[in-house]
């Protein structure tokens, strides 16, 4: 289990904001935690997949995509803030993220 520091949290936020600003050709300063990924940014699941791959490589994560998918079914992600929170949990718990349900 990885320990999440303030530095990690800031890094994840920076990556997520920069990613969506570039992918969605949006002004980064207009993206907030409350920005809806689909409605406001026209984001899609391929972007989500790409972002997961970025974090898997950066933090050398042991997690299967379908594990994230199962978790997301019960904890749908709509906003940038929710996505960052999910990503923090993924980094912290990796494949054990589903055990948080038990």
């Amino acid at each position, binding site marked *: 289990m990885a320990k999440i520091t303030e530095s990690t949290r800031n890094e994840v936020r920076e990556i997520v904001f920069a990613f969506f600003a570039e992918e969605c050709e949006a002004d980064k300063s207009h993206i907030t935690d409350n920005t809806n990924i689909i409605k406001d940014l026209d984001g*899609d*699941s*391929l*972007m989500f997949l790409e972002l997961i791959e970025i974090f898997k490589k950066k933090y050398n994560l042991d997690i299967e*995509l*379908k594990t994230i*998918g*199962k978790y997301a079914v019960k904890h749908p992600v709509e906003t940038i803030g929710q996505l960052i929170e999910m990503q923090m949990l993924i980094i912290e718990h990796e494949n054990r993220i589903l055990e948080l349900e038990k």
Partner: protein
Amino acid sequence: MAEDTLAFVFPAFIADYRDDPSGNMPEFRQIFLDYLGVAASVADPALLSFHAVSNPFLEDELRNQYLTYIYGCSCAETLRRSGIIPSVIAGYSMGIYAALYFSGSVSFETGLLFITTAYEAIRASLPNKHYGMCGVIGLSDKDIRELAGRNNLDLMIVNRNNDYSFILAGNSFHINVFLLKAREEGALHARSLGVTIPYHTNLLSEAARELSKTVYTADVRSPKIPVISVLRQDSIGDAERARTEVVKNIFNPFNWLETQQQIFNSGIHIFTECGPSLALKKNSKFIPGTGKFVSWDSLVSDDARFAST
């Protein structure tokens, strides 16, 4: 732009026109209207009522194919008249017709004839429309096969866009069950493609035989610009091979991932999608290499515009 750096890729269907960049391009508009007029006169008069917002024909499988073809040909022709010629071309699924047209292998009218004949032959051989296709993102090839096997679903993986993005086809009931199970299994995205034809499956082999009668009597020539086969990832070098490709394309699975990799590996690193959306661009992000997609309108620089516009 150097000719040896660019590939044109043609989509199969149009999902929407939200990202359509052609609104500010009068040269495209005129070419599109010219092609639309020809298509209306030789294939379907109703095409003249097309409007990207009020009447886009998105739900009409045949007219959507016509419009995708017309748009793709118009887009590529706009680029050609601006002096932008690709060194290779590829057609995603039914995008093959526009690819062959632009390569010089068939006339615009012959491309329309192939689309019409294939559709009518498919409808004649599968009249009940109990079929469909779906896309799934987030599961592996192994996950999908195991899921289908566990639930006795008779489906085929007909295309791999990347290692976690696939297209399946088959019986529509099985498709619907698969979509439910795929979401339970952890797919990030699983949805029907909204078609009633199981393209790229052997369910269309009878239709392919019927299509071949038209294809083998039509005027088909060797492509002047190399067209990369999405079935075998090699170059469609002559007329005979072009004919074979058109017929085999409708009832054989293809591999878009390997097709793009093949193009990358041949040293071509810039792609442009000859369509109104960005579906192929999005898929390309997962393909190893240094290639990138550029929007087709950005290739038409102001100083390259037609003198007539």
